């Protein structure tokens, strides 16, 4: 997926707020592209533009896939009146036989076996987020967009979910665009990391060569982490 010259601004309290300013970037379509940036830098805005939930002011999003995206929002956004199973199959098409097979496979993949008849209110936060992941996968998307899906989870659950995401990615062979503000998460997951700051893509790192699971205390990882922090903080100094 390639993004060219993408701009988006909002009117906030009577003033124009430029969130994305002629953003150019390219994702790794087989791997996990992580967009990393501080809170409020426009990550959610970027995903909403890609998911066509909002129109861009300018620029284009080029992509060769079939156009089928799976979106996982910052919150699970499950339908409270449907069971976990029906939620997972929400966008899965009509064929009953196929749906049943799909449900079984996805329940196993996301570790929700035995909970297909539970309502969202009866699931924990992590389980809801896994159901949302399964729901996105059930529509057979070519590409997954994930907006800080694990930000609301505690450390241990988050680690667990990251592991599961890597597992899903390996089995399903789908490209993933993952948005986060956590450097650790970016380093643990990304095959490519893009730093979004001030409305543009400031820097990119290629991590294809590093196998999973990654040791974040490894020398290279520490070096990359330092470099990322420097890039984000350096801009902070120049703008101040």
């Amino acid at each position, binding site marked *: 997926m390639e993004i060219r010259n993408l701009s988006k601004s909002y009117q906030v309290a009577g003033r124009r707020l430029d969130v994305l300013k002629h953003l150019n970037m390219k994702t790794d379509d087989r791997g996990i592209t992580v967009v990393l940036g501080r809170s409020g830098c426009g990550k959610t805005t970027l995903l909403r533009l890609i998911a*066509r939930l909002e129109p861009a002011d300018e620029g284009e999003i080029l992509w060769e896939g079939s156009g089928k995206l799976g979106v996982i*929002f910052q919150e699970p956004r499950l339908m409270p009146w449907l069971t976990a199973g029906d939620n997972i199959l*929400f966008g899965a098409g009509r064929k009953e036989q196929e749906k049943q097979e799909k449900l079984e496979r996805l329940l196993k993949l996301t570790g929700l076996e035995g909970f297909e008849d539970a309502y969202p209110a009866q699931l924990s936060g992590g389980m809801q987020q896994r159901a949302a992941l399964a729901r996105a996968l059930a529509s057979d998307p070519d590409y997954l967009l994930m907006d800080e899906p694990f930000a609301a989870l505690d450390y241990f659950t988050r680690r667990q979910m990251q592991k599961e995401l890597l597992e899903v990615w390996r089995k399903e062979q789908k490209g993933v665009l993952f948005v986060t503000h956590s450097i650790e998460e970016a380093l643990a997951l990304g095959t490519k990391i893009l730093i979004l700051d001030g409305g543009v893509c400031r820097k990119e790192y290629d991590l294809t060569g590093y196998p999973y699971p990654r040791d974040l205390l490894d020398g290279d990882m520490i070096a990359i982490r330092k470099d990322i922090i420097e890039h984000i903080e350096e801009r902070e100094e120049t703008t101040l």
Partner: protein
Amino acid sequence: MKRFGKTAVGICLLLAVWQLAVMSGIWSTYVLPPPAKVASSLLAMMRDGTLWKHILISMRRVLIGFGIAFGLALLCGMAARGLPRLEEYYGSFLEFMRHVPPISLIALLILWFGIGETSKIIIIVLASFFPMYLNIRQGFVSADRKLLEVGTVFGLSRWQRFCRIVVPCAIPDILVGMRIGLGYSWRAIIGAEMIAAASGLGYLILDAQQMSRSDRVIAGILTIGVVGVLCDWLFRILIQRWQRYGD
């Protein structure tokens, strides 16, 4: 079950007070008949079928009026969501009508439609439309935007989003509206039947009063209350069914 027991105790106490009041002799038994008398005339009316006949007639009116009002409220509520521009035209009129008690229109209705079924059904429609419309509208309009975006992401059309997201979001409000609306219709029909009718529970009461049969009046009142409570209870169960996921 405990609750049931307490209710039974309360009813027994009430009956005892009633019996005592009768025995005190302050009121003549024509004005305040003893519980046993009321029970026996209730039984008599059940046995000869008059009670059932009047209940069915009132119920039929309520169901027709309520059905029409529900249909209209559903249409207007849907329009408020789908065509908000249109609502600007009729919104103020509805707001005005909402504050006019339907019984106050009965004089005009009788002039226009006579004392037949039509004017009674119109009264019920007027009485139950507004609580239903306001709740249904609220349900449709306040459907969760975040859930709607999920529908957009899965490529659902506007109509599919309406059926699969907006309607389920609105169902609790719709049911609450129906429950309130049914209560309003039931009250309105009794009022209308007491003003102009030759049948129905309201007429039964009025007729009994004119014949100085206060035992029958009280029996009629009890019937109205019981039928009202039963209808409400049915709706409450429906609502709980739907909201079972919430706990």
